């Protein structure tokens, strides 16, 4: 498969100036709201340390905690399935549905089912799948994947949504009122909630000691999906386990504050056992997670609670849009997870970063995201996956930087060059950096020459 070219894909996103401007501003606003919430809690940093330690402890004892969770869930009356990969996950879900004659499935947002590409699998087998999160539904109706793990349609403006809804669910063409659009979606989804054969959710956390799993939404759509139909299927990645209820408090305090800058999601829902007369099926999914657990530098990414804070703060993500990553997970967390799924296809993604470290600073579970990005770059370089231009440039830079005399000569030459070279020599295909940017004006002299003249005499 051809590697994803993030820079090329993002050039389309960048070309739509009003979309780009809104996207950048909206996500930065989420970052600012996150800051206000975090600063409102004196123990914020202590909570981050606790969350990180709980996750690292759990992942280092994951097999035992998975067994504990399974045992409790079975005691509670749930049926527990295990899926090694996406194909097995989709098959299990299909088997559970078809054995009960289920034809319609209402579901809440789940990155795991996106990762497994479950919807087309079920739909090809005659099962209608209705996404019920507003953003996810917009993306489903537009036949696009989510561009953000928390706000799936954040790259769209109201005019885009209006067009999609007019085309698909009978909204009035040209009506771009956001309240109207949301109400239209509510009206079109409600019959599905009332009459679907089955409901599906993901999980944000799964508590080993009680066999409970927890789903956080603002729309209450997971609660509708799970509490109206007689069958509830929950797909849960094996890294979602935490040991005890007292640990859950730490994560719930961090999650929505980090994601949206609100103290908690409108609904934090705990599913422990099926309702009387209803069925609860839990699918525990590996799909590459156990292999990632064995990667010395990269297992820390399994601590992720999918809040999206690293995406909101990332200047590259905000200005390139989630779809340009060509993967289920985008932004800083995406570019360290995606290569574990397919190192060739996602080999360029670790370069979609400025390595500013902001992602690491906002991460509620203290994943060393920017260090992992750097480590992935080294791996890609060793695997010979760098484009020729970048490789040759880095070889020369490496040589120049290692020898002070060469470096000084190069710097003074570069200053002259930028001043005097014609534009085509600076802004050409060898310099992708210059495609969207102007080289800053070079100062008249180097710091070194100034220093020698002014300070070295004293």
């Amino acid at each position: 498969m051809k590697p994803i070219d993030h820079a090329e894909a993002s050039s389309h996103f960048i070309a739509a100036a009003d979309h780009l401007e809104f996207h950048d501003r909206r996500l930065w606003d989420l970052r600012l709201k996150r800051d206000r919430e975090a600063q409102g809690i004196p123990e914020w940093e202590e909570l981050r340390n606790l969350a990180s330690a709980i996750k690292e402890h759990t992942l280092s004892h994951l097999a035992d905690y998975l067994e504990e969770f399974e045992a409790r869930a079975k005691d509670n009356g749930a049926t527990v399935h295990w899926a090694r990969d996406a194909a097995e996950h989709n098959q299990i879900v299909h088997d559970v549905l078809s054995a009960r004659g289920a034809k319609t499935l209402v579901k809440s947002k789940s990155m795991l089912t996106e990762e497994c590409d479950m919807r087309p699998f079920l739909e090809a087998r005659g099962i209608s799948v209705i996404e019920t999160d507003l953003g996810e539904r917009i993306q489903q109706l537009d036949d696009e994947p989510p561009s953000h793990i928390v706000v799936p349609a954040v790259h769209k403006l109201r005019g885009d949504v209006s067009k999609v809804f007019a085309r698909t669910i009978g909204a009035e063409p040209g009506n771009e009122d956001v309240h109207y659009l949301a109400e239209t979606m509510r009206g079109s989804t409600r019959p599905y909630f009332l009459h679907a054969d089955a409901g599906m959710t993901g999980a944000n956390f799964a508590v080993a000691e009680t066999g409970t799993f927890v789903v956080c939404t603002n729309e209450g759509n997971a609660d509708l999906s799970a509490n109206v139909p007689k069958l509830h299927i929950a797909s849960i990645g094996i890294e979602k386990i935490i040991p005890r209820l007292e640990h859950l408090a730490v994560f719930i305090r961090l999650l929505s504050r980090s994601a949206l800058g609100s103290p908690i999601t409108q609904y934090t829902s705990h599913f422990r056992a099926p309702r009387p007369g209803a069925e609860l099926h839990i699918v525990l999914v590996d799909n590459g997670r156990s292999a990632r657990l064995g990667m010395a530098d990269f297992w820390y990414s399994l601590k992720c609670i999918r809040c999206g804070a690293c995406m909101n703060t990332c200047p590259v993500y905000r200005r390139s849009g989630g779809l340009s990553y060509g993967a289920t997970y985008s932004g800083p967390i995406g570019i360290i997870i995606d290569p574990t799924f397919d190192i060739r296809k996602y080999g360029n993604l670790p370069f979609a970063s400025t390595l500013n470290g902001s992602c690491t600073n906002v991460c509620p579970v203290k994943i060393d995201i920017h260090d992992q990005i750097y480590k992935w770059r080294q791996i890609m370089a060793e695997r010979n996956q760098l484009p020729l231009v970048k490789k040759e440039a880095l070889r020369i830079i490496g040589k120049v930087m290692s020898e002070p005399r060469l470096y000084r000569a190069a710097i003074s030459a570069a200053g002259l060059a930028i001043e005097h070279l014609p534009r085509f020599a600076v802004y050409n295909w060898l310099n992708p950096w210059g495609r969207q940017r102007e080289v800053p004006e070079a100062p008249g002299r180097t710091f070194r020459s100034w220093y020698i003249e002014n300070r070295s005499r004293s």
Partner: protein
Amino acid sequence: MSRGAILAAVRANQPAALPAPAEIPQFAPPAGALLAQFTDTLTRMGGKLAPAREDGGLDALVGALFPDANVVCSATPEVRGTWTLASVAEPVELADVDLGVARAAFGVAETGSVFLSETELRVNALAYLAQHLLVLLDPAEILGNLHQAYRDEGFRTARYAALVTGPSATADIEGVLIHGAQGVRSLTVALVPRPGRGAT
């Protein structure tokens, strides 16, 4: 068997044992300010606090707050409503409810949340299929933060339990806040002492 294969792979790959934090601190907020904090956060999350009632009678309060509600379905005997949950066999029968009423087991000051499980709701979907939700909360039953909340036995015994904080909401289109995305359009919390618990 995938179960065995997954567990074996996890066991083989999991990093060397790292310790769990000894104990999770409680970070308890000052007890005197709980009601004010609860009110503040609930309001910030889009919920409303019902004004204190002058006269007795919750049914009068319901009538005053929701004059347009034709179908009122209550999970607490404190409010009569127009329709009894006892006759509901399937959740879908609640589709036409204008107002659902329930008494929360407790509230959480930090987040402005109320705890509702199947014990309080009787039919879980009541809190989601109704157009509006009224929750009774004893002001003496407001806990400080989520650390205190998760010590409640309800999380261990209920099949389904939710911390409900404000109405159903979304900001998925251009960040514009909408109440009533999929579930209830409004959430109102009325501070009413639990019957028989020393209301003076």
